């Protein structure tokens, strides 16, 4: 199974959200057989990018057992919906960036596949460095 086998679709396009709004979508796993999937995890999280070491915060986490995850395979899909937090907002800074995404991690016999879809939370402008 490849990374492309996991598909995540958000209900909003472009995926721009405001704090406290509802985020919803659907994810599917394309596998030949339901037995391949051992478990799956859906996370809505933020992580930092840029110069510093990566920090990670998980806002929503959902783990599916083999039976539940199997039902997601073969294109049947599974919906998700949740309320977004008030902070941290998405940020494109000079050396600090905050990125939000929906990430699905599928564990199958012999490995795992990860797929993620980024989205934007809030309306923070891109930062520019000021000479000191």
């Amino acid at each position, binding site marked *: 199974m490849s990374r492309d086998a996991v598909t995540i679709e958000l209900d909003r396009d472009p995926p721009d959200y405001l*704090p406290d709004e509802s985020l919803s979508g659907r994810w599917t796993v394309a596998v030949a057989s339901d037995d391949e999937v051992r478990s799956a*995890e859906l996370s809505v999280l933020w992580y*930092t990018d840029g110069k510093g070491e990566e*920090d990670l915060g998980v806002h929503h986490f959902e783990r599916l057992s083999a039976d539940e995850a199997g039902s997601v395979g073969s294109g049947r899909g599974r919906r998700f919906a949740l309320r977004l937090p*008030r902070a941290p*907002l998405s940020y494109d800074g000079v050396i600090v960036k905050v990125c939000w995404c929906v990430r699905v991690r599928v564990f199958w016999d012999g490995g795992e596949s990860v797929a993620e879809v980024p989205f934007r939370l809030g309306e923070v*402008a891109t930062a520019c460095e000021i000479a000191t």
Partner: protein
Amino acid sequence: MSTDLPSDITVVETGDGVRYVLPRPALGIARMMGSSLALFGLAPIGGGIAFIYFSLKHFVRPGGPLDVGAVMALLCPLSFVVIGGLLSLFGVWLLAGHSEIVLTADQISSAFRLGPIVWRGRRGRRHVRRLVVERSSRVAGPTGNLASLFAETDKGRPLLLALVYSPDWLSALAADIAGRWSAGDEPIPVIHRDAGRATSRRWRRDLTAAGGKRAIPAWFLTVWGLGFFGGGILFFILIFQALVRGDPGNNLQGDFPWKVLWILFPFPFIIPGACALAYVRRRRATVGLSPEQLKSPERLKAVDESEYPTVPPVSHVPGAELSARLTPELAAGCGVTMLLVVVLICSGILASLIAFVIDRTWNRQWEYVGMAGFFVLFFGVLWTLVTGLFVKEWRLWRLGHPVVEVAALPLYCGEECGLVVTFPGPARLRRLRVAVMCEEAASYTEGDETHKDTRRVHEEVLAREEDLAIERWAPFRLRGSFRVPSAAMHSFKTTHNEVRWLVRVEGEAERLIPLKFAHDFPLPVRPCRGNGGRT
């Protein structure tokens, strides 16, 4: 091979690769550094040898299996001899040595040669991620045009390939190495940076599948922890038994009641060993969990229930004029007090040692003079450093600390906030500046070193004064307001990344030796109110 390779580098083609024979470092600053280091290294060598001689003559006696104190008494000065020897060796290498770089299909290695003495290092090709030309300093001066060349990996220490050459010279060499090594394989990037300041962290993104940073193996920690913990317990039992029996074999040095202090000896082994075992036990609970599950709200015991968990709180007290008085990052007088304690301790030890040296000199006991003089030198350097810091903090404390009050806490993006800044007198300031600013701060690890970088992304200057005379009865006073832009980032703090809003009061006091100061008062800034339909 590049045609730009410096002509003083000898390139030798070998059967399985190529060898670069580098010339001796250029004369001038390198020769001066070499001479200084070679001479400076003799001081710890002499001190260490004197201490060993003194210990062997007066203290160390064969005392059985538990005579650990004797071994420690010899190991400590031996480390001085080794460090001094290495310093001197490095100095002599700068004067008379040279280095070589050997490149094969599988690895890169460096050899620093001084006659028959060779210091070697090597790294596998698959581990090397980049070549780095690191300039020692951008400051104009004798060391401003010196640089080193490293082969960096994503795990372990970088391999030093060459040092004390000019950046341009090393850049040409690095380009040639990268050109030869990249043929038919993943290219090796050459990056330039100043010491302690990385240009990019993007290389973290191009980790190979097997190149990720691995944690210390659990089996190693377990064995290490068991070894330290078990050994410490064994020592404890043996020493305890010996003490209870009155130490009939006199295996523990000293007389009662001081001999009892030996019971403390095993704890430096027991405590780290126990900590390692506890860490392994805790880590076992997280084996097999994804990074998201490790950070999931259900797993985190101390879930932050606040609405803005990544907006750090700041400490404040009720204000006299406005609603809140901000407290500085480090309380006034705290640093002065701590440094004063250290200065007093150092002064006491140093004075005692000097008195001892004078007394022994008077009695012509030169062995004692040599040993104590060594410690006088060590504590003298320490005292000078600590006293210098103390004087600086003391001057800042005497100058006085500003008081900053704001009309509302916490602040919200897009809202205006009143502010009062007071600077006490008397003081004569060459300049004074009050500004509200936003800074990004990121910490990252390269090799074994952790660096921190800061960038300013917003600044609103509220006051800028020059040649300011503040009287005792008329302190400097600024009353105004500022607005955090609605599209600005709110305060954000995690383990390695931070966006911080603060009021900075900085300036320079007019003294015999000008005194620069900068006081930061953090502000908690939350996202705009009203987003998502909330008010």
